[in-house]
Every structure is written in structure tokens, then in C-alpha cells.
């Protein structure tokens, strides 16, 4: 990536969508072993992967929207390598990958480590700017919240679907 403003915007978009997932993954995974969660029958692992897939879909939607407003199909037909890599998260919709939650984690860790690297590079520079540091943390927090909200929405949908299917079977 060069030092242009467009590259920085691309960096921000990728971080906001994907960098907060590892923390959500770690939190939810540590909860999935909880007795009450296991008794409720909710498969948190599947919901996690679906969360990541939805995040990927949201990112795809953003790219389509940007392409539409820029009146250029080229952005969509010739995306950068980073955008292509980010859009691989949509593959988490595949049943094959939904059973392998580690794939989503590894994919998101790429962006998390990139954010971490930027943060520590700024911190260790000759004249670190607090605004850059706090902006990085804001981006990370926003990403975590985005993924958490998506996870909660999926959880609610799962809950509603189970209650509805539960009523129908009576």
C-alpha cells in the first residue's frame, strides 16, 4: 500500500470490518463451554462463523455501493488484492467452512495483526502522535462493536427461529 489518502481509507475500511473479530471470537469461544450455553443448545461456533460471513457480506455491499456512486464498474471488476482477500470472508457461508471456525479466525487475524503493527510502529516512532494512536483504537473498538452487534442479531434470529420452530412442533 502506498501512502496515499485512498490507501489509508482502504486500510480503515478493512480494519473496521475485520480487525475486531478475533476478540469476539475469543470471548464467545470461552463462553461456548459454559454449561448453561451448552444446555440451551445454541451452537455459538456456527453463529460466530456466520457473524464473520455477514461482516464479509456487509463489506461486499460497501464495495458495490462505492462502485455505484463512483460511476465506475472498474472498481468492482478490478479490485485490489487486499479487497479480494477481504472478500474471501464471504466463503464462510459455505457449510464446509462453517464447521471450521478456525478459518474465519485466521482470516481476521491477518487484519488484527496489521492493525497491531500500525499501532506499535506509530508508538515506537520518533514523535508518536496520540491522535493516530487513539484513532487506531477507535477503529478497533468500532470493529469489535460491529462484529458484536452482528453476532447478537444472529443470536436473536437463532432464538426467534428456535422458538418458532418449537411452537410448530407442538
Amino acid at each position, binding site marked *: 500500500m502506498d501512502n496515499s489518502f485512498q490507501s489509508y481509507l482502504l486500510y480503515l475500511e478493512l480494519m473496521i470490518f475485520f480487525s475486531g473479530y*478475533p*476478540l469476539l*471470537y*475469543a*470471548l464467545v*469461544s*470461552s463462553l461456548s463451554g459454559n454449561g448453561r450455553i451448552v444446555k440451551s443448545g445454541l451452537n455459538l461456533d456456527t453463529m460466530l462463523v456466520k457473524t464473520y460471513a455477514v461482516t464479509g457480506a456487509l463489506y461486499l455491499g460497501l464495495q458495490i455501493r462505492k462502485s455505484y456512486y463512483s460511476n465506475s464498474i472498474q472498481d468492482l471488476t478490478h479490485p485490489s488484492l487486499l479487497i479480494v482477500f477481504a472478500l474471501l470472508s464471504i466463503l464462510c457461508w459455505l457449510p464446509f467452512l462453517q464447521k471450521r471456525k*478456525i478459518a474465519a*479466525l485466521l482470516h481476521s487475524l491477518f487484519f*488484527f495483526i496489521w492493525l*497491531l503493527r500500525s*499501532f506499535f510502529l506509530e*508508538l515506537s516512532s520518533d*514523535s*508518536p*502522535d*496520540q*491522535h493516530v*494512536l*487513539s484513532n*487506531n*483504537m477507535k477503529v*478497533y473498538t468500532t470493529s469489535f462493536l460491529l462484529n458484536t452487534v452482528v453476532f447478537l442479531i444472529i443470536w436473536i434470529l437463532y432464538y426467534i427461529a428456535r422458538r418458532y420452530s418449537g411452537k410448530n412442533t407442538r
Partner: protein
Amino acid sequence: MKPFSNQTLLIVLLLFSGYGYVASCTHKSVEIPVAASTSTVITRGNNIHLPGSMVTGDTNQWKLDKAHCGVLWSGNYVGAAGLLTGRFNQFGIHDLTDAKMTNYITTGQPLLDTSWAFYENDPTKSYFNGYVQINTSNTGEPGRDAGCNISTMGTVAIVAGTQNLSLTNVARIKTTNIKFDALSNDYIVTLNLTWKGTLATPMTKSIVGRLKYTPKTRVQFGTSAAYSVFGLQLLFQFNCRDFGITSTNISDKIDIECNMNFNNK
């Protein structure tokens, strides 16, 4: 054993996140240095230039290099169009008292150009007394210069071989106050301009002008002896109507530019 311990991952991520929040919230940015001043940098040296008796060879005495000086005037033609300009061919830096205001049979300077002093860092000690011979006004048009200009200015025609320093033919300046300009390296000069013009008796007007100093520089050309030079430029303007000049060919406001060069040969 799980290759990827969830607990370990959680702890590591929480540690990184926590450190990040603490560092971003508590880290103090490097203080932005104070902006450099945008005000003019004024530097004044300690040069002192005095004419003495203008003895040739005395490098402590500064001589007016008249051949490389000029007193220029300009005003708007008919008060509305572009500039009408000219110079005075004959001028000097001497305090013309009543006794000295007469004709001098000479083609050179009639009086020593010694009525001045310049102290670069102490303008209270600086002063200038100068004069121009009005009938030597040169606009490049002989018909004007020896014709209507003479009568318009209330003077008399040039007499060859004569320097006319009579009352009707000289305009004089005498500085009354010189002080530093706070905003530049220049000096603010208050002077009295005395000129009879077409009036019955000479009129004296107090005028404020600007003096620029070109600092002393040592020069040498080829194998000839080195010497030093410095320059002064005096700028001021006056209203020619104050001195009875009624010609509508020239605007009321006349700008004067005196460019004086000195050396210590």
C-alpha cells in the same frame, strides 16, 4: 491439547487491547514547537559615515559620488494619465544659507557636499541638507525643459558654465528628525522642503519621507585600489500647488526619489 487455546487467545487479545487503550489515552504527543515569528527581522549595524572635508585619499571621509547619483521626480501627466518623469541634473548636499544662495561660475559642484551625517544605529545624530537647481530639470524634451518648464517653475533659464543657486532656482530640504522604522530596516525622515516656486516668498512645508540605507561594501575592480561604497535613498512626496505651481500638465502630487552614492576614495 487444542493447538489453539481459546483462553490463551482471549488473554493475549485482552492484554493487547488493554495496552492499546491505555497507551492511546495516556500517551502524550510531542509538543508542537512554537511557530516561528513572521515579523520582519530588523538588523542594524553600527556604521558611521561622515563627510569630513572630503579629502581625497582619506578613507574615513565619505564623498558624494555625484556622477552616480540622481534626484528624480514624477507625477501623473495631466493628473490622470501615466507618469511624467524627469531628473534634476544639478544637485548637492549642502546647507544653503542666504549668503550662499547666489550664482557660481563653475561647471563642477559649487559647494562641498558636506552637510550630512549618517549614523546607522543612532538616527538622532543623522541629518541631511540638500538642494536641487530647478532649471536643470531634465525630462528628455528640450522644448519643455528649456521652455515652458522654466516659466512654470518660476525660475530662469540655464546660463552655460554657471551653477545657479539663487533663491528663485533652488528647492532645498533640511531634515528635522530621523528615527528608526519599527517595521523595516528603513528610517522615517521628517524634513522641511523650502521652495519659492511661483510664490512671492519661499514656502516651507514639513514632509515625512523614508530613508533606505545600502550598507557599506568594499569593492575592487581589476588591479585598481579597493575602496568602500554605501548608498542612501530618500523618498518623499509633496503637493506642487503649495508652491504656486498651477500647470495642469502635472498632478498635484509629485514624488521625489533621491538616490545618493558615496565612496571613501
